[in-house]
């Protein structure tokens, strides 16, 4: 089971931070993700980015989560040498995440 079957996403930058909005397709998907798409799991998945901290904000009214990856861009869009200097591709990256548990 990969995240893209349960949710859609969008990412962008604010200074050195990236945020990734993850939106569940259904209420059941939202509650599954609330339990399994934890800050720890996301931080581990993106560990190569070298974030200082990952925080999850829940938006139950929209069946969505907002993940903020603090320090993920290491200096921000104008300074980072990466192709994806603004984290625009990380929405696509998170959707490839897999879960061992089936909803």
């Amino acid at each position, binding site marked *: 089971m990969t995240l893209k079957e349960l949710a859609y996403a969008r990412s962008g930058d604010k200074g050195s931070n990236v945020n990734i909005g993850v939106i569940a397709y259904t209420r059941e998907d939202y509650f599954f993700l609330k339990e399994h798409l934890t800050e720890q799991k996301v931080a581990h998945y993106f560990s190569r980015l070298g974030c200082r901290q990952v925080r999850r904000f829940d938006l139950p009214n929209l069946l969505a989560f907002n993940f903020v990856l603090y320090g993920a861009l290491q200096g921000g869009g104008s300074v980072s*040498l990466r192709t994806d200097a603004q984290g625009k591709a990380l929405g696509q990256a998170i959707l490839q995440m897999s879960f061992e548990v089936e909803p």
Partner: protein
Amino acid sequence: MALRIGNAQGFWGDQIDAPATLVRQARDLDYLTLDYLSEVSMSIMAIQQEKDSASGYARDFVGVVQSLIPYWKQGSKFRVITNAGGLNPEGCANACLDVLRKSGLSGKIVAVVMGDNVLNCLQSDVSNALYCNMETGESLRNIEGRLTTATAYLGAKPIAEALALGADMVITGRCADPSLTVGACGFHYGWKWDSYRQLAGATIAGHLIECGTQVTGGVSTNWLQLERRTSIGFPIAEVEEDGSCVITKPSDTDGAVNEQTVKEQLLYEIEDPGNYRSPDVNVSFLSLKLQEDGRDRMRIAGAEGIAPGENLKVSATYRDGYRADGLLTLVGDDAERKARLCGEVLLERVRSAGFELEQTLVECLGSGDAVLGLMRSSCDLKECVLRVAVRDSRRQAVDRFTKELASLVTSGPQGVTGYTTGRPKVRPVFGFWPCLIPKSIVQTIVKVPS
């Protein structure tokens, strides 16, 4: 009837014919907002202004004004609100007035909003704790001599004041993006500046349309499912007196406005959805309700707001060395391995020339490097794009790198191609320095240049 506000420019470099197209497609538009400023665009304007003191604004906007003239002449009444003024709103206004005058529209009133430039405040008080980098806590003293720009995000109030002066066009410098919309609503409905629920609703509307086509199908996860994608319509927010709104787009345009496009854009570039901070109001997204309201129409209601903080956010930039990046395409067996070796060879050659570069990055695009190997392709690549990016405080070091890249065409493996774009350019790097400033020391000026 709801106030109709369109956005036809999501960033500096967006489709230049979008504003004229939108006012043609939506004849009853009340306001057209155009957003030109990203976090570091001010530093590009600062370089331009060093060379020519009359510049320092988004020059594209003057061409946009020219393209709108036929619609005003045909009787359209829309007013324009834009942050195209950059570092020089007055210069921008003068250029626009010139275009209007030559076209026989000298009756149009152009107002400017100034006071966002706080470079002097920062430079004269570098030890102030508020001016420390919000992300790193670093003191402004560390970059004191290298500061290039510092602008505070102004809010909706001066925009509403400019509209009250009868302005047909309001040109600001740095301004919070949603405030372009909030200013129009605040003026039109005569909201008090502590009517936080209404201001919160309008801020949501502004946030949703500020990036143009990003809410009408662009950047969507499910972009492939759009029926048509060539001419995606730019967004229109129909804002009601209670602050709720409908997001839509002109009929007969490509793209879509639906639950998915709106939810994705709501979450775009935000931090805490329970406390989205703007100069006008701090907004909670947690009470929002979305509802379909016909084809390509989404109703958004329920925003809650509280008083904003005592400080404004400042976006400052400073010189931070030089950078360059070069691309080569490798074709054939073992393309990825060859690309990686070419990257190493290139940096080794710069080293032999006497420059130990401070920061380097080799990416083999196609193999999964763009997202740091999180999505690796499982097959043996037969073609791969080598991208090498470097950064250094010494211009000469970066310059040397740009001169080494092409040597791989003859000394690298067979199958190196795609070098016709020439030597990479050495570009100055501008670091981003977010900090705060007390509202009380920011002197906002609204005026109508004659």
